[in-house]
């Protein structure tokens, strides 16, 4: 026998109580992982989606990008401006402008420019097939997995008025959220959605990335008296503004995730406290046999440690399975992101679980470690 065996015996003598404590820890850790992963997913999207040398030009009077409408002719005007290296126009349509967890976002892009403005990776043959066929689509890997789409399959999106396309390629991307998108030819999407000559926004690549602020002012001034005045912002500022409505909510739920870890303290602290109360005589016997205070403390804390480790492992596994199995995604204002359940987050959750559980057991363990044998025996007689 060793100390661990004794601890396991101690925990399993009345299995309901430690099981409930482990369950509470697991729930708390799973909740913490889930909300933290959403928070980190949003951060990742903002970090990977915003390029420093690109400005976004969109409708001055629409803060919701999918509702922004600019004349496609703006692109030509932008191309002629000093300080502009390249321009592309995009039209995108989504099923809703509010937050939904099952969103289909379709981007109308210019095939000749998409690879210089969007970070996508797919076989050359698939891209060639896409470029040569109007009504073809490139589908992000995550969207293809989520909906079970295959190359060559023709898809009709009922929620977008029966928009039909043939999948010609499946791409991957390092840009968080882009893998959930569907890319089709801009002109095709304009016709299919009855928006000829309209785009949602233009991406402007700067000749000098240091000149972004001045150029943004110049662009907005240029279109100020047109029928479609513009608002121009860095891509990061544009994304920050677009997701601001959800960013606060995500931050709040993230705080709730940390709050949920209080369950670890309550669950383990209560369980160990009751367990020790029931075993006062046994602990007095151990001390009579010669167990010293540090040894009793170690035995008691190891029970809390095991509850924290077991609950943490179950919680981490549950969060991982839940997020992977549901392909959960959050979308706001046309930007999609998935919870980022990274190994570092899982490790952080495990460490927090074990540390908090052990700390939760400390008051009860200290109390019993300090208990004098005679008093303990008298207490239960």
């Amino acid at each position, binding site marked *: *026998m*060793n*100390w661990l*065996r*004794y601890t396991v*015996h*101690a925990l*399993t*003598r009345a299995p309901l109580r430690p099981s409930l404590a482990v369950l509470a820890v697991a729930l708390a850790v799973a909740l913490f992982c889930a909300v933290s992963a959403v928070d980190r997913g949003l951060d990742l999207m903002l970090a990977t989606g915003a390029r420093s040398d690109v400005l976004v030009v969109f409708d001055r009077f629409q803060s919701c990008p999918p509702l922004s409408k600019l004349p496609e002719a703006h692109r030509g005007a932008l191309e002629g401006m000093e300080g502009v290296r390249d321009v592309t126009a995009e039209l995108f349509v989504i099923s809703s402008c509010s937050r939904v967890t099952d969103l289909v976002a379709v981007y109308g892009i210019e095939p000749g420019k998409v690879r210089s403005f969007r970070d996508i990776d797919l076989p050359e043959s698939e891209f060639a097939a896409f470029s040569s066929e109007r009504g073809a689509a490139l589908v992000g890997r995550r969207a293809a997995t989520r909906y079970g789409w295959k190359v060559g399959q023709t898809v009709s999106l009922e929620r977008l008025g029966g928009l039909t396309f043939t999948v010609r390629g499946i791409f991957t991307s390092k840009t968080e959220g882009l893998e959930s998108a569907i890319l089709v030819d801009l002109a095709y999407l304009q016709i299919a959605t009855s928006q000829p000559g309209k785009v949602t926004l233009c991406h402007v690549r700067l000749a000098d990335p240091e000149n972004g602020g001045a150029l943004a002012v110049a662009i907005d001034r240029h279109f100020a008296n047109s029928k479609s005045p513009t608002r121009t912002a860095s891509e990061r500022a544009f994304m920050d503004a677009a997701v601001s409505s959800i960013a606060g909510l995500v931050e709040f739920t993230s705080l709730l995730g940390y709050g949920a870890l209080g369950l670890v303290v309550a669950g383990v602290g209560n369980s160990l406290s009751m367990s020790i109360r029931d075993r006062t*005589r*046994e602990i007095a*016997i*151990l*001390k*009579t*046999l*010669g*167990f*010293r*205070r*540090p*040894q009793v403390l170690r035995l008691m804390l190891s029970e809390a440690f095991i509850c924290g480790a077991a609950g943490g492992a179950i919680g981490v596994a549950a969060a991982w399975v839940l997020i992977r199995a549901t392909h959960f995604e959050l979308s706001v204002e046309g930007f999609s992101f998935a919870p980022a359940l990274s190994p570092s987050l899982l490790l952080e959750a495990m460490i927090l679980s074990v540390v908090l559980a052990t700390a939760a057991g400390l008051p009860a363990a200290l109390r019993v470690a300090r208990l*004098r*044998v*005679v008093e303990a025996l008298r207490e239960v007689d």
Partner: protein
Amino acid sequence: MKGPVVQIEGVHKIHRRGPESIDVLKGVDLTVPEGEFLALMGPSGSGKTTLLNLMAGIDSPTSGRIVVHGRDISRFNEDQLAAWRTRNIGYIFQAYNLVPVLTAYENVELPLLLLRLPSKRRHEQVMNALEAVGLADRRRHLPSQLSGGQEQRVAIARALAPDPPLLLGDEPTGNLDRDSAGAVLGLIGILCRELGKTFVMVTHDPKAAEAADRVARMEKGLLLEDRAGAL
């Protein structure tokens, strides 16, 4: 004549409960020579269990000296006493007090874990102790699968396993029927003689006291009578 294992000199013990003070021991002197089987008798509240607890180092005297094997344990702090108990005291409780989720073997092994012995030697000591009490074949049984007499024999094996020179028993036969009590006391007597252990037992039972070499009677915190037992 063998030297004393226990020397108790002028020991007082006062229990304080709030404003109330109770003189449990009022200047007790007692010497227990090596190899002796001593029975401490007396009515409830006479202080015999307190005296036993002081010998075991699980309680401290208010004044006086307790010397066990030449060491004045009344000066030890709690952790020193705990470490000292591991090697020097085997304590047998009335209610057996085995850990219910551990087997007989694991219960006997428990105090040996503190001695950090090699596992082979630990195993030998556990088996020797279980064989000494005749329960080697029940080593895998849980306490709930043993009779009261068998449980107490496991408790004796647990007390013997670290090979302490002094065994202390607080009503070790108090929960047993007469036959089982007789068997347990007979076993303790044999073990003391064969293994050279000194045994001090608290008991209410005159029949149990007959097994001792000497009987000391206590009343109201004083040692009144000290006479040879039946053996």
